[in-house]
């Protein structure tokens, strides 16, 4: 099975690392955010070398106040996922090549994925039938 790496990196090194993968001919597969506790998020940027099927995942830890630099200038497809990170997690991505300004997803509540897990939903008890009239 092809190698899969998780590489810890920083926000400052992110764009440079993406440029290095582009220079090596690797494809940008995706980026996404995950909750990492209160006001902390993990970003995952995945790159694939289609010649060897190797996958590299850059992991970056950020807070909600951080400004995340866009990699859209290097990989144009990134705008889909960066807008998604903004809409679902409320993160700020700067210099996106196509910025929907919060309108990428039509959501009922803002940043729904940034909310803490609410535990397993309890089934709603069925209402008891009214006692039959005597």
């Amino acid at each position, binding site marked *: 099975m092809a190698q899969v790496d998780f590489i810890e990196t920083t926000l400052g090194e992110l764009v440079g690392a993406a440029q290095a993968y582009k220079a090596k001919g690797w494809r940008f597969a995706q980026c996404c955010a995950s909750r990492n506790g209160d006001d902390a998020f993990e970003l*995952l940027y995945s790159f694939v070398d289609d010649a060897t099927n190797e996958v590299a995942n850059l992991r970056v830890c950020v807070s909600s106040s951080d400004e995340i630099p866009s990699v859209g200038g290097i990989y144009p497809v990134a705008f889909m996922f960066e807008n998604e990170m903004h809409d679902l997690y409320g993160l700020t991505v700067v210099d996106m090549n196509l910025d929907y300004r919060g309108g990428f997803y039509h959501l009922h509540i803002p940043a729904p994925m940034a909310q803490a897990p609410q535990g397993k939903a309890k089934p709603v008890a069925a209402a008891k039938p009214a006692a039959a009239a005597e």
Partner: protein
Amino acid sequence: MATRTVMPFGPQHPVLPEPVHLDLVLEDERVVEAVPQVGFVHRGLEKLVEKRDYKHFVHVAERICGICSFGHSMGYSQAVERLMGIEVPERGQYLRVIWHELSRIHSHLLWLGLAADAMGFESLFMHTWRLREHVLDIFEKTAGGRVILSVCTPGGVFKDIENTELNAICGVLASLLEEYDQIANTFLMDDSVKNRLVGVGYLSKQDAINYGCVGPFGRASGIEMDVRMAGIDAYSKLYDFRPVVSTEGDCYARCKVRIEEVRQSIDIINEMVGRIPAGEVRVDVKGNPEEGSSAVMRVEQPRGEAFYYVRGNGTKFLDRFRVRTPTSANIPGMAGALAGCDLADVPNIILTIDPCISCTER
């Protein structure tokens, strides 16, 4: 100089089974630029992983899409198996490949029918979907469902298929292939089809690489990339696998690639049935994913590469489940293919990426 106008296209349009919107910047009848917009039916299925047992969540993952439902259940299961270091019995791996390739056949037949319908070729549409019914019948016979199969689970598959039944499936596919050849011939040789597809929606190989296109859309522009080449699980047992590639880069090439992939999938199924080992189809999965553990998995869905990411936290609930669907990767390329086309060709070009908005908005 022609006046530029912006024309909204979708989200409701006769050729679109699902809602996607485009702002088409036009100069007369020519598209200069297309700005895509999705996000009308976001369902938040990924969030559900926080309150569903990771073993049960496979049924949610399967419902991401009604067409590639089996592929999503397989991708999620394989990601969890990699997360927990689980080895699936060989027979289970083979059965997964057989069901997955059947899904590809039915997905491509569905797409070919939709393409014929979009061109106004109703009889071709009906014949194509009639053939697709044979595959759905196989699903029903082997799994009990025609759309949602619910056979894949972390650790293997819930149901075995008897060897006699597997041979019967090969018989059904052999007779399907005879009729399919006639339909494929019409798609590839008929002038009315060619007039609508040849030279339309061209995307060069370099542009396809720059946009990060995947699946038949990318392969029709000459990108030799197919996750099945990575040899994950039973795909590593195939004698020789080469992706179907075309270099024309137009709508016709996308149609041609999918037509050949149906034949390729039938060959893969025949090979798997001929070599499937006896034994168990599933191992019991015990315990929970470790805290801080994470894994990624890639699956070649009918529409292209799907990317799965899972992260454990030591409980029976996962911290994160993420799917990057092939349509998400192909939408920028679709916008690129639309630039410079005639307004009348826009529906055909959108259709040839085989967009699945249900997957994209999971």
